[in-house]
């Protein structure tokens, strides 16, 4: 009923007192969600409705329904009731509610904006995410919740967010990693950016995080992580893998290189066992045991060794002897009855307490196939690839130097006869003409024609109109060295006094 009230207040002098009930009725009947004008508290520009910074404590009435972006930031909203968006916003794609005082969001609060793509609730006072708070936002791609005081995330709260790709939960008070984001049914299918920095996470579900590494960036900087062996192993692997969050925020992770408070991992003595990329081959149906590279045995008490397989992640704490893939207590990966699909790269993630040198790798390539098919091994393949590369670069550089030598040797000053003599000419010109159509205008040239540098000496050493190729240079017919279909390069003609200008346009 609120919109109708504003209709009445906006209209002055609708009619006499006797007509007012009729007018009221008319307005009641006539009110349809039509394109409303811009409320006075807001600025309507293009499809953006900006009501920011107006000290609003409630949504203005009669917002235009064509709005694609609604900005209500920097106001004093405190709660979002279920029907706070009093009109349907079918086109709304961006809703900005940051920098308010919102502490409570009721269920289905955003159901009137089902096409929302970007929702900003940053810098508010939220403490809990209830279930159904984001109900109906099936197309939402980006959700900003940083700078709140969120302690708890209800596992059902992300139930409808199928399309969510980027979630910012930085600077909150979370104490547990929200694994339900990835595990709840109906939750985000393609979450590629999760920011959990500056929370209160101390324990990490390392095995699950390992498996999620491939999905995208999980940002954990600024958390008071306990530096146990598992966390150290994870960070060590991420650093080696050049995982984006570690590349950008390395300095803000605790557990640096064995120093720091709360360091709870018994380090092994570090033998200098080089970690080369290893390759294992097995025939289908056989079993394979892959020892963990660079791990000195025996494994210290309490240390867990993780293996990241092409499909999942495993650890050594609970070996299952009958499973297809299992990790033995000493860190060795065991593949029973190998299948072709088991081929791929496997990484052994453990806290080795060492820097990785160039070319060192905790990864292992496993190939399941018939031995007759492949030759040598991954290492041989790799070196042959390297040889091929170096050979190719050497060949290429030889060819380039030969070309340069030929260029130099076959350059002769060229002299042209007459033609455009009135133009003073000086400087040098390089003409490159390999466009076959140029040949049609009289000259018989099949390939590109290469023309000399010209010294600024004689008056008649000039080339005529740049539009037509020089008529008088038949004697220069080297093979087109640069045989692409490029057009004639524009020539620059400079006065003798002005500095040399070369033109090259390819």
């Amino acid at each position, binding site marked *: 009923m609120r919109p109708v009230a504003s209709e009445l207040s906006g209209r002055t002098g609708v009619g006499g007192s006797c007509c007012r009930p009729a007018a009221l009725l008319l307005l009641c009947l006539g009110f349809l969600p039509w*394109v409303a*004008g*811009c409320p006075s508290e807001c*600025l*309507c*520009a*293009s*499809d*953006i409705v*900006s009501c*920011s*910074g107006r000290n609003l404590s409630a949504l203005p009435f009669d917002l*235009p329904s*064509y709005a694609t972006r609604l900005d209500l*930031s*920097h106001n004093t909203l405190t709660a979002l009731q279920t029907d706070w968006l009093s009109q349907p916003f079918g086109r709304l794609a961006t809703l900005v509610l*940051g*920098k308010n005082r919102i502490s409570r969001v009721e269920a289905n609060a955003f159901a009137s904006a089902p096409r929302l793509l970007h929702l900003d609730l*940053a*810098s508010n006072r939220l403490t809990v995410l209830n279930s159904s708070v984001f109900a109906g936002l099936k197309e939402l791609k980006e959700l*900003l919740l*940083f*700078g709140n005081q969120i302690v708890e995330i209800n596992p059902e709260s992300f139930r409808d967010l199928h399309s969510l790709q980027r979630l*910012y939960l*930085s*600077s909150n008070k979370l104490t547990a990693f929200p694994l339900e984001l990835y595990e709840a049914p109906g939750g985000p299918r393609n979450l590629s*950016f999760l*920011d959990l*920095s500056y929370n209160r996470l101390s324990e990490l579900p390392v095995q699950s995080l390992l498996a999620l590494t491939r999905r995208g960036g999980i*940002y954990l*900087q600024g958390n008071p992580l306990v530096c146990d062996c598992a966390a150290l192993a994870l960070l060590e692997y991420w650093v080696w893998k050049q995982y984006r*969050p570690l590349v*950008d*925020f390395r300095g803000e992770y605790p557990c640096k290189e064995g120093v720091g408070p709360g360091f709870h991992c018994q380090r092994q003595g570090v033998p200098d066992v080089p970690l080369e990329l290893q390759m294992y081959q097995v025939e289908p149906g056989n079993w394979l045991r892959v020892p963990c590279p660079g791990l000195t045995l025996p494994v210290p008490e309490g240390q867990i060794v993780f293996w990241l397989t092409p499909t999942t992640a495993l650890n050594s704490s609970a070996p299952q002897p009958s499973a297809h893939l299992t990790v033995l207590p000493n860190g060795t990966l065991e593949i029973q009855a190998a299948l072709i699909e088991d081929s791929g790269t496997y990484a052994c993630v453990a806290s080795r307490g060492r820097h990785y040198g160039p070319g060192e790798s905790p990864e292992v390539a496993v190939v399941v196939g018939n031995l007759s098919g492949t030759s040598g091994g991954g290492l041989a393949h790799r070196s042959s690839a390297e040889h091929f590369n170096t050979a190719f670069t050497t060949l290429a550089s030889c060819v380039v130097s030969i070309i340069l030598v030929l260029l130099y040797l076959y350059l002769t000053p060229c002299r042209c006869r007459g033609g455009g003599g009135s133009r003073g000419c000086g400087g040098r010109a390089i003409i490159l003409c390999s466009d076959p159509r140029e040949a049609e205008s009289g000259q018989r040239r099949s390939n590109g024609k290469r023309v000399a540098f010209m010294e600024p000496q004689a008056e008649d050493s000039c080339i005529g109109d740049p539009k037509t190729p020089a008529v008088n240079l038949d004697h220069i017919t080297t093979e087109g060295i640069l045989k692409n279909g490029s057009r004639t390069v524009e020539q620059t003609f400079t006065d003798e006094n002005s500095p040399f200008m070369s033109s090259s346009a390819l």
Partner: protein
Amino acid sequence: FCVFLTWALLVSLCTAYLCLPGAAGSAVNCHKNCICASNIISCSKMNLSVVPTGLPLYTAVLDLSYNKIGRLQSEWTTVKLPNLHNLLLSHNGLHFVSLEAFVYVKHLRYLDLSSNNLRQLEEFIFEPLVNLEVLLLYNNQITQIDRSAFIGMSRLEKLTLLDVSSNKIKMLRIDELQALPAWIKNGLYFHNNPLLCHCDLYTLLAHWSIRKLNSAVDFRDDFTCVLPGPEKTPVGVFELSGNSMNCSTFEEKDEEAYLKQTLTLGCDTKHRDMAKTWRLPGNVPGVKKTNCLVVMWDNEQDFSSNLICST
């Protein structure tokens, strides 16, 4: 001893003055002057008078709205910010933007300069922003748009929204506007400006309205212009065909041609990257050349037919 005391006092005053905040640019501080959420750096409403220095290279969104940044110098960033794609500078009282302000942020997609005090924009400021999709200039004090601005706009190939509404623009070059492709016209908003009334303006907006271009349809009532004369009363542009200036009502004309004449019909649409085809009535054959459909008629009676361009 007194001399020494006064000298020490002077020195300390001098150093205190130099250390005053605002005298030199302060760096980004994720605990004091900005909120950092990985690649979003939000420094809005922090009383800043210059852009904080030391912006990290991974910054994707930089929010500097509601501050007091009056001038955007060319050195607001001294290094390339290859990941920056949203820059928010609204509500700053910005009155000067350096010509080289955007050379280091070529990947910018969304630039919000709205609600500032910009009076004019040099024509080439936005040239480096080849990836720009949205440019918001509404609610400034812009009095004129340089004639190359619209040409430059078609060069910014990804620009889908240019908003110069709520400014102080009096004159627009109607012919250049009309020549823009439809997809740009769809995203060009200039309502709520003190435009001078002119029948050409009415024709332009009526045409856009018939073509259902968003800019004309959504703001039909907000397109006002000022009648020539001392009173300077604003009237709606769409009312110009009636009493005010008696502009001829706009209708889309039929095309007419004589025998043996070549007639070229354009097919433009506000949606981008669409394949367009012409539907010819009856069995009139057409020969397809590049980008053109050549139709030859021999008889006069075939002329009065509808050619439908569909996407």
